[in-house]
Every structure is written in C-alpha cells, then in structure tokens.
C-alpha cells in the first residue's frame, strides 16, 4: 500500500470511529443502554436485578446518614465501593 493509500485508510478509520462514537453518544443523550458495556448489558437482559438493586439502594440510603440525635453529615455506612475487612 502506498503512503497516500495508508493515509486515506487511516483517515477513513478515524471518520468511521468518530461516527461510531457520535452514534453511541447520541444514544446516551436519550438515556439508552450502552450495550458495549458488560454491566449495562447484563442490566438490560435482566432488569429485575436492577429493580432489586434499586430497592436495596433505597434501603441503604435511608441508613447511610445519621439519624435523629447524631451530627449532621455523619455516615453510618461506608461509601459505595468500599470493602471492609472482617473484624479481628
């Protein structure tokens, strides 16, 4: 392949990549599920799991912060993603 052909191929790839990402972003503006993401795809296939997660999330949210008599802003639960080692 000549240098010019290589450049043209690269240019075409860039344009195609750009179009692909623009399409994905366009879908995201409408709140559509991104199927290239494994977690999102699993949620799409099994929305019940999402519902269960949502209910648990709400239950934990009500516990997350301090209740009456405690300092405002005190956390009862660690932030999401934190893994707490077992007590020794």
């Amino acid at each position: 392949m000549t240098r010019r052909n290589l450049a043209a191929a690269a240019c075409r790839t860039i344009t195609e990549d750009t179009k692909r990402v623009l399409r994905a972003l366009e879908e995201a503006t409408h709140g559509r599920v991104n199927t290239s993401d494994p977690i999102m795809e699993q949620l799409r296939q099994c929305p019940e799991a999402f519902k269960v997660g949502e209910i648990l999330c709400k239950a934990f949210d009500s516990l997350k912060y301090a209740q009456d008599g405690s300092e405002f802003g005190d956390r009862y639960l660690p932030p999401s993603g934190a893994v707490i080692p077992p007590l020794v």
Partner: protein
Amino acid sequence: MIGLPLDVTLPKLKGIRGWYCTRWDEGPAAVLGMSTLRLGICRPDDWSGSAVDFVERGFRRFCSRNRAVDAKRVWVGDLRITDSLFELTEQERNQVEAGREEMTDHLYLVGDYEAAASIPIGATLARLEAENHLLPAAFYQVLTTNLYKWMRVYDYLDAQEHAEMWMEDLSDEELEASVYRKVDLETPACIKRHAKTLKYERARNLLREIRPHTSVTRELIRHLLEMDAHGQGHAHAWPGQLSEKDVPGIDEWLMDAENSRPGCLITWYENDAINACFDEEAQHMGENGPCQPNVTLPIHLDRPVKELDEEVRRVFDHASAMLRSLAAAAKIVELVRDLYDEYLREHRIESGLPVEPGAAGVREEQL
C-alpha cells in the same frame, strides 16, 4: 511500598469501570461529548462506554496540553465541568437528583481556588526599582491586571478597605497600636507614588521597551509578558456577569452567595499588615452563604449544534488561556518567592537576628 496497611481496599475488576454515573450525568455529558468530539478536543479512542468518562478523558488531556501541571505548582484549586454552580455534598447531590424530573440543559466550566497563593512581592519590587524607578509600579500593574482575569486578588487595596472600615471605631490609643494603621505605612513608596497614575497600557509598553541588566529581572519581565499575551482578549468571567436569561435563578443565588475566595494574597512580606487583614477576613469567608466561584462560564446544551459548538469552543479557549497564563504566572511567583527568601537570608546575616521558621514553612501554614 512501605507504610501502614489500609483498612479499606478497593478491588479492581477486569473490564469493569471503577464507577458508574446516573443518567442525569450521562445525558448532559453526552451532548457535551459530541461537541468536544466535533471540535477535536475529545478523540474516538476516549470512548469507554460512558459519556462522563469520555468528556473527562478529553478534558484531562486538554488541561495537560495547556500546562495545567506548571500552573498547579503554585495555584491550589481546580477547573471543572459541572452541572452545579456551587459545590454539593454527596447527601445534597443525592437529594437534588432524587427531585429531578428532566435532564439539565446547562453545564458550567467552573474555576475555583482552595487557598490563596502567597506572593510576598516587596523584595522583588526593590530589585525592579534598581533598574528603573517606574518599573515596580509597571510590573505590579500588569501582574495584577492579568491575575484579575482569572481570580479575585487580595492585595493592599483590599487591606486598605478592610482597615479603613475597622479604624472608624477605634480610639486614638487603639489606633496607634493597631495593625490597620500599618497597611498604609508599609506600602512601598514606589507603589504609592505611581500606582494610580501608571495605567495598564503605559505599564505594558514600559515592560516591552526596558532592557534590564540582571537576569532575574529579565526572567520576571519575560514571564509577565508571556502571561499578558495569553490573557489578551479575555476578561474575567465572574458569575456576576451571568444574567437570568443565561442561567435562570442566578440572581437569587448571587444574592445569597458571598464574594469569591481570593486565589492569591499579594503582600510586601509574609506576616505583614496586609497578611493580618487577610487573615481577619478569611476567618469569616463563607459564613453567610456559599462563596461564588472565581470563574463561571455556562454551556447551553439546548442550543442548535453550530451555536453549541461555538460556545464550547469559546469556553475551552478561555480555559486554555487561563491555564497557560497561570502557568506563566506560576514561574513569576516562584521567582518572587526565591527573591524573598534571598532577602530573608541576607537580612539575617546582616542583622544577626536569630533564625526564625523558614519562609516556606510559614507559607505552608498560611495556606
């Protein structure tokens, strides 16, 4: 790595991002992401499946290309793209998102400072005066004019205002002993004499024409003219400039908000009267409401593509100028601090005074 074991571990799962965003965040980010992709700020390979992640990657690279690392050496703060004009706690954000019915049609580029960078400029002014009697005032004028484009500056003029307000209630005896009187007394003659008459244009011409004899003066002027060049065509984007048409509800929010926190404190020397006035004011900053950000530029996501792209380009141009200008300013501040430290060393040797805590240490404590 040597250190105490952490009691919290965040596992990294292969192929899974560390965080996910709500659709309230993904939607606006996707609109901005499309615009930044069209403008070449983001690239297709920034795409990881999340619009927020996409914009963040592009924005990080943009900041890095515009010398954010150099700017960070002196300026303590952040430049962020956000959907809220003021910072929210996690709890407040959760409440806002729970009550939201539709996607926001505004994002903002917000610039703010967590601490005021200390600029003890007295020793530098003395050096400049040795070259030309107008040079200190010219340097001060161009430096502060340019800093004001990106931040609130606290200097002797703010200290004078603060001092005058408090001196009204003092008796003669109290006045004699007060620090407020010193604000005026400590102002260098080279600034007092020329600051009001030497305007920006004339000051900049003087800086361009002068041929300094010492390398440090040459460096100071070179960096200042570079800073000035980056700031050309840009004005300070205060939140106060926003109208109700731009951002609905802005007037009410501005009424409840306090003035911005200063991004720098220009003193003659550390712990002088300006510093004392600043410390007094800083104690009460943010007590009566959130402090306005130093820089706020809105991005209207509901505009037609062409208009949106023009606005995003304008906002990113502003960010680029700000970062490059502050990177040049950081070099100036480092030289100013070096000259001040040198002055302290010489002063100690000549006077035989006992050694006090280093200037760097004092600076750390203040910040």
